[in-house]
């Protein structure tokens, strides 16, 4: 038998082993479908290997390191001399974390009878896929396919990344030393997260953002807190500024930027990180062979079941239009798998939570106040500040607030947003509340453990009702006797 001539038959092929693809494959295995998962690099995708996990490992480390300088206030005296950070050791630790998770995914695939094939996949026809595996070429014949090939950084042509001076997020997370000066092009969440982490580790960081706001995805009053902190960390933030040109010479990069305010200026730094967006990996998949439609940016539009215009081909995660987030990819993957197995699943929730691991963290779900008003709601909203929360102060984390947005008439929760310490964990309560169609009273009447940060929700909810205990209530209208 000549490999490649005879196709191996399987129910489903999943292309891409990121959080979308591997979740889909495992779920298909659970549902007793034969499934082949094709991954050209390592299982876990961007999220596990180059995204969420490594970046959070770095952010955590930077946070711990940064805290050392404030421990004195808490009575902790460190031995004289300054603490230092050894990035190669961090790399070793990070790799061990990533490795452990990789092995976990691998093990789970095996345990669920998922055949993992290492190689690059391309569609040959509407029911066959070819995989380049080193020197071989294998073909698989499938009934259904799931495209989960994810995304890669978008790098404009004038900013060729070289892995040494001009970096993408992957390069950045692979560095062995903290750059002395660092420019970050793009003040979105990846840029701000990594920028703040490196600032805490000692880099002199300049953020260059083309729009009027950093973190343009979030409401301005939330990102405001981050901007304040950025300044305290000594970062330079240039908004409404565009990078026109980048030149590498003498071991550094010179960026020429223009802004209406400052005209043309140039900055020279040791390294530049480009994080101005991501593009879907759909170009080389041979989608034309199957007739799967893409939009002009290369994204594959899908229905709430993940189905493309070809009903037996599904697409999930970063290759589909919508926020490029790992949890969205996973949810879509599980739904696609279940739909293929004949279960009535659907990604029918508008509640895609977001978390941003900046300093302070921002997290939210549902609508912001502006969005709710735009949708025609009469809105009631209230915030509760961290500095009125006992636990926050006891943790020396008094910055930030929780905000609860409700429909004035029904008191249904429309959105919950939080900026402050551990916002990323706190938002879980918000997602659950919104999914359960809770009213603000439901949160207000739920006993929250004390002393915890979670009490900020309780108090923000009470504040909406006009009777928060730990702040003076601005509106007394809703006070019930």
């Amino acid at each position, binding site marked *: 038998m000549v490999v490649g001539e005879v196709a191996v038959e399987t129910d489903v092929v999943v292309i891409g082993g990121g959080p979308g693809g591997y979740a889909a494959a495992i779920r298909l295995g659970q549902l007793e479908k034969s499934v082949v998962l094709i991954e050209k690099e390592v299982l876990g995708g961007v999220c596990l290997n180059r995204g969420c996990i490594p970046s959070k490992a770095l952010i955590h480390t930077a946070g711990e390191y940064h805290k050392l300088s404030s421990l004195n206030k808490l009575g902790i005296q460190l031995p004289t001399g300054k603490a230092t950070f050894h990035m190669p050791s961090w790399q070793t630790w990070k790799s061990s974390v990533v490795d452990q998770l990789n092995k976990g995914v691998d093990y789970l695939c095996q345990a669920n009878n998922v055949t993992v094939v290492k190689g690059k996949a391309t569609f040959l026809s509407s029911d066959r896929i070819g995989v380049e595996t080193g020197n071989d070429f294998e073909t698989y014949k499938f009934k259904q396919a799931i495209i989960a090939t994810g995304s890669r950084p978008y790098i404009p042509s004038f900013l060729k990344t070289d892995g040494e001076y001009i970096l993408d997020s992957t390069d950045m997370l692979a560095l062995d030393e903290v750059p002395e000066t660092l420019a970050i092009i793009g003040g979105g*969440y990846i840029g701000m997260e990594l920028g703040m982490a490196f600032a805490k580790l000692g880099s002199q960081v300049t953020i260059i953002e083309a729009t009027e706001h950093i973190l343009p995805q979030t409401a301005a009053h939330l990102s405001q807190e981050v901007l304040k902190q950025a300044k305290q960390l000594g970062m330079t933030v240039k908004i409404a500024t565009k990078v026109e040109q980048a030149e590498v010479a003498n071991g550094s990069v010179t960026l020429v930027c223009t802004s209406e305010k400052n005209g043309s200026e140039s900055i020279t730094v040791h390294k530049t990180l480009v994080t101005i*967006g991501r593009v879907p990996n759909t170009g080389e998949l041979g989608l034309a062979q199957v007739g799967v439609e893409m939009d002009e940016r290369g994204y594959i539009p899908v229905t709430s079941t993940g189905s493309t215009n070809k009903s037996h081909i599904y697409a999930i995660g970063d290759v589909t239009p919508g926020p490029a987030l790992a949890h969205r990819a996973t949810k879509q993957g599980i739904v696609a798998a279940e739909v293929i197995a004949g279960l009535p699943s659907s990604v029918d929730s508008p509640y895609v939570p977001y978390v941003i691991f900046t300093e302070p963290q921002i997290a939210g779900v549902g609508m912001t106040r502006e969005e709710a008003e735009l949708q025609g709601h009469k809105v009631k909203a209230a915030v509760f500040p961290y500095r009125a929360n006992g636990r926050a102060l006891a943790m020396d984390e008094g910055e930030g607030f929780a905000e609860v947005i409700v429909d004035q008439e029904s008191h249904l929760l429309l959105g919950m947003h939080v900026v402050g310490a551990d916002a990323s964990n706190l938002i879980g309560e918000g997602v659950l509340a919104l999914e359960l*169609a809770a009213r603000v009273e439901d949160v207000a009447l739920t006993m929250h453990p004390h002393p915890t940060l979670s009490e900020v929700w309780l108090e923000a909810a009470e504040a909406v009702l006009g009777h928060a205990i730990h702040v003076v209530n601005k509106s007394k209208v809703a006070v019930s006797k």
Partner: protein
Amino acid sequence: MVEFKLPDVGEGMHEGEIVKVLVRTGESVQQDQPLLEVQTDKVNAELSAPVTGIIREIFISEGETVEVGTTLLVIDAGTEAKAEETKLPEKVVNPDKTVNFAPARADHRRSLATPYVRQLAREMKLDIELVTGTGAAGRVTEEDLRQFANRLQKSAPAKFPTSATGNERQLEESTVPIGTEPVVQPKTGTATRAATSSQGDIERLPLKGIRKKIAEHMVKSVTIIPHVTSVDELEMDQLRALREKIKPHADKRNIKLTFLPFFIKALVIALKEFPTLNASIDERTNEILLKRFYHIGIATDTPEGLIVPVIKDADHKSIFQLAEEIDQLARLAREGKLTMEHITGGTFTISNVGPIGGLQATPIINHPEVAIISLHKMEKRWVVREDEGVIRWMMNLSLSFDHRLIDGVTAVRFTNRIKELLEDPNLLFAEMV
């Protein structure tokens, strides 16, 4: 951007209730694709998209009553489904910035339910958006789904006769399946089990949609009109024989010949002779309006509730023409396709509860009309003819009339005349125009 306003879908309507919103924010729609169902006085109208585009915003929610001219939603014309998700602010291809974390399509106006209940709805193949929630703040509960499913199951065979034979039988045996009595159940509307141990389960149904309109209309009728009902019985043997004779001819022309056209004919003849029964009272000016046209409403039971399509100028139509028109209107009614045109302007209403049963009733007058006849079950009864007990096909007829305008004597004379014409259909033909 195209603002889509509530149009005047029927003569003189000034408001409508949004029964169902068929699209969501962010959804792309084709021109003429249905967007909403509104319920005006008595019709359900489907409003469709004037242009192809993306639904940008929806300002109304289901159950809301809005005035004509109110902006219901905004359509971004010229953009298509995919363009929506792909639309780029000017230059940079930058998903980080173009995709907001909290998507604006977080439209909470979708029905409220927990993820588990949604999943259950999908498993039960129910459209959760159709289920009225009885939980806190209108949440759809597991129990709501089960009640909804039960009701669908119970009502489906009766109200949506799927087999052609079912349909035909119903039309043939009787006339139009109808009733002035509230024999219909609302199609939507969910029950709560507000169980009490000693009394057993109580179902709570929201009063909404057409049912609510009917309720309002009925209350208005009985509060304004002093109703009196008189009942008589008709012998139907001759009419039955006649119909048997004509039926093959009707069949040849594909016409379903029921008894109703004969009733309408007799009724019209009688109305011409008793003009106060084809009238209305203008309560504002205290005037009696005698109508010299004969638009006969036929109360029809539809899946949506009781609707009264009107046969215009019944006096100018042959038995066959009437039969055809009744058939057609009944079909439209069942399919929910009646327009305002079909259901307005009646001068007198016939309600036929015969197919369902019942000996007599107090039909409620369809205000501003002044009388209504309801026809009951046709059955063999023992009757006395020439001092002998014989079996005849008998049918009762109840007439409710507006006592402000019509006296008992007139009313009885009126039904006597109808009786005369129907018991001896030769007379009917003699009088027919």
